[in-house]
């Protein structure tokens, strides 16, 4: 397993060009092209903002400006959920490669995660523009933690993506199951509401078991609130993420030989 892990490094050229291809191919043929990368989160954001500030009348002063608050959680969530749903079908849609070419299969789910990470990173300038527009700036002292959160999320997502994509080859239902789990997961994570809201309190103990809870809260504390007090949980999650990654990779490696036949 570890020799296989090591060979991942050899494939970085391949991963790099496939990520580039993914990004190029996605918007090829559309008029707006790469602009969709920016427009998509903006549209989603305006819908949620409208629902939660105008219709649901969320007036907690701590979450103002609400659009910026929500954007801080929505952006990483979009990366996470899109990565997983694309990664789970990546082995099946890339079946031709696995069956007909000597091709390192793990590259496919990894490319899904990384391509969506690029979209995530492209979303950051919009977030910055929002912050400037609303005159709400993050705490500079906490900013060095930002790459750490991103790294933890990356490792966590990669682990899940590898494990789920391998399982999907044998159980196609993982895809449909995942779509529903992701919806539940989204609402169980403080993204469109804040973790300190009174109505959340009773469930907090349960919510804390949700790994993405810690990611979302970390992002919000670093980018939106003044104080980053979540470092310990984040580092714990980091350790858990490494375990998830190793478990995901182990599962993938175990099922690897069956791909060429089962895809």
């Amino acid at each position, binding site marked *: 397993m570890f020799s296989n892990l090591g060979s991942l490094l050899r494939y970085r050229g391949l991963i790099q060009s496939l990520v580039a291809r993914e990004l190029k191919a996605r918007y090829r043929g559309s008029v707006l092209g790469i602009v969709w990368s920016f427009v998509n989160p903006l549209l989603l954001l305006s819908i949620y903002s409208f629902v939660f500030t105008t219709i649901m009348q969320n007036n907690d002063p701590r979450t103002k400006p609400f659009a910026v608050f929500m954007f801080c959680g929505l952006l990483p969530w979009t990366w996470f959920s899109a990565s997983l749903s694309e990664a789970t079908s990546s082995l099946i849609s890339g079946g031709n490669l696995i069956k007909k070419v*000597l091709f390192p299969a793990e590259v496919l789910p990894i490319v899904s995660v990384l391509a969506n990470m690029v979209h995530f990173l492209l979303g950051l300038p919009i977030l910055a523009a929002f912050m400037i527009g609303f005159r709400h700036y993050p705490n500079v002292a906490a900013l060095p933690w930002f790459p750490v959160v991103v790294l933890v999320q990356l490792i966590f997502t990669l682990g899940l993506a590898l494990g789920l994509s391998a399982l999907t080859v044998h159980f196609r*239902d993982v895809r449909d199951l995942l779509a529903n789990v992701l919806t539940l997961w989204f609402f169980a994570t403080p993204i469109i509401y804040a973790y300190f809201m009174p109505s959340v309190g009773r469930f907090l103990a349960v919510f804390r078991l949700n790994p993405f809870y810690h990611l979302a809260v970390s992002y919000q504390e670093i980018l939106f609130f003044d104080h980053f007090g979540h470092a310990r949980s984040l580092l714990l999650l980091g350790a858990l993420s490494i375990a998830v990654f190793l478990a995901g990779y182990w599962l993938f490696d175990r099922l690897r030989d069956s791909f060429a036949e089962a895809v």
Partner: protein
Amino acid sequence: MTSAIELDHVSKIYRRYTGRQFATLKSALLKRSILRDLQPNEAFLALKDVSFTVAKGSTVGVIGRNGSGKSTALKLVAGITKPTSGTVRVDGRISALIELGAGFHPEISGRENVFINGIMLGLSKREVEERFDDIVDFAELREFIDAPVKTYSSGMYMRLGFAVAIHVDPEVLLVDEVLAVGDEGFTHKCLDKFGEFRRRGKTVLIVTHSLALVERLCDEAVWLDAGEKRADGDPKRVVDAYLTAVEQTEKQQMAATTAKAVQAAAPAGPAGDMFQATEGRWGSREVEITSVELVGPDATPSFVFHTGDAVSINLGVRAAQPTSDFVFGIGVFNADGVCCFGTNTGIEDMTSDRLDGDATVTFAIDSLDLVEGTYKLDVAVHRGDGAPYDYHRLLYTFRVKSRTHDIGIFRPKHRWTFSSNVRFK
């Protein structure tokens, strides 16, 4: 001579999960059968203890029927799948022309696809850059290289895939039935490229149904049959052995067809018009044809013959009562139902005198001058006025094979002569 590819007692079992057809994750979890379901419940032996080596610098062809394990063998050599037991050893960089253009993305341009495909096949970006012009020129796609691949015709697509794969500059090239790429000109170019590979001492392993190609191009051939190696070595010899076996199978199929037709023919079928081309058996059975056998030049019953063979049709007949009124006849029809030849003892002015008890009738053909194809046989015995005793309509099937692929039905003995100013190579 060292070997470039070595298969040592290789077996490959494909598992079939028949029970898993409708199983879902949920039901697997509910029934706690997830581990059990991941176990195969039916195994298909695609390769059975196959060993062969390919010497460095030689070109070897793998032949065999569909489903004989040729492609599996190639995939094992390519490393795409792993052997269930045994070892596969390959020395040197492999390029596999198994599916051309696998991994092309339709939305992006040919240029970008060349780069990504090259990297997938193990080149570095710089190496692709160096070869880029050669690849594009070889594929003859200079003017389309910046168009998205989805706008390519299937020939263009294959050509580009072939060009990339062959420019990976492998030490070992694996080819799976891909020479049907593009037009005549391109095929020649591919063959030239293979020739160049051979001259430069590269190893080539080809899986193909084109026996002519194997005879012409390969130093050695391997014949796989139902997952087992039947023969390897000199291509001419292996191809001949293979062809003989194919005949053998055809023979069995013909025998089965005939047996089925004879059985299906109702014991007392409808009295039919002899020109109506439906198979069957009818007649009063006062004289009965009890057996029909086709015997080839080797004096054994067969269903497959070669053009020009001496063939006898042997009938066993039995007359319930002695009779003096009988005519024997035979007819040969081709697959389209066209009567190729028909005759009977009446037509040939033989006047019947006496038939009693069991007898044999032999219709000997000195030279079966029919072109290659499948033929059906009528045999009959009837009264002089045509009333049938026992009529077997199209019940017997036989095949005629030929090394020359001439057309029509009849192949008369012939020869060509030319005046001295006509020359052939």
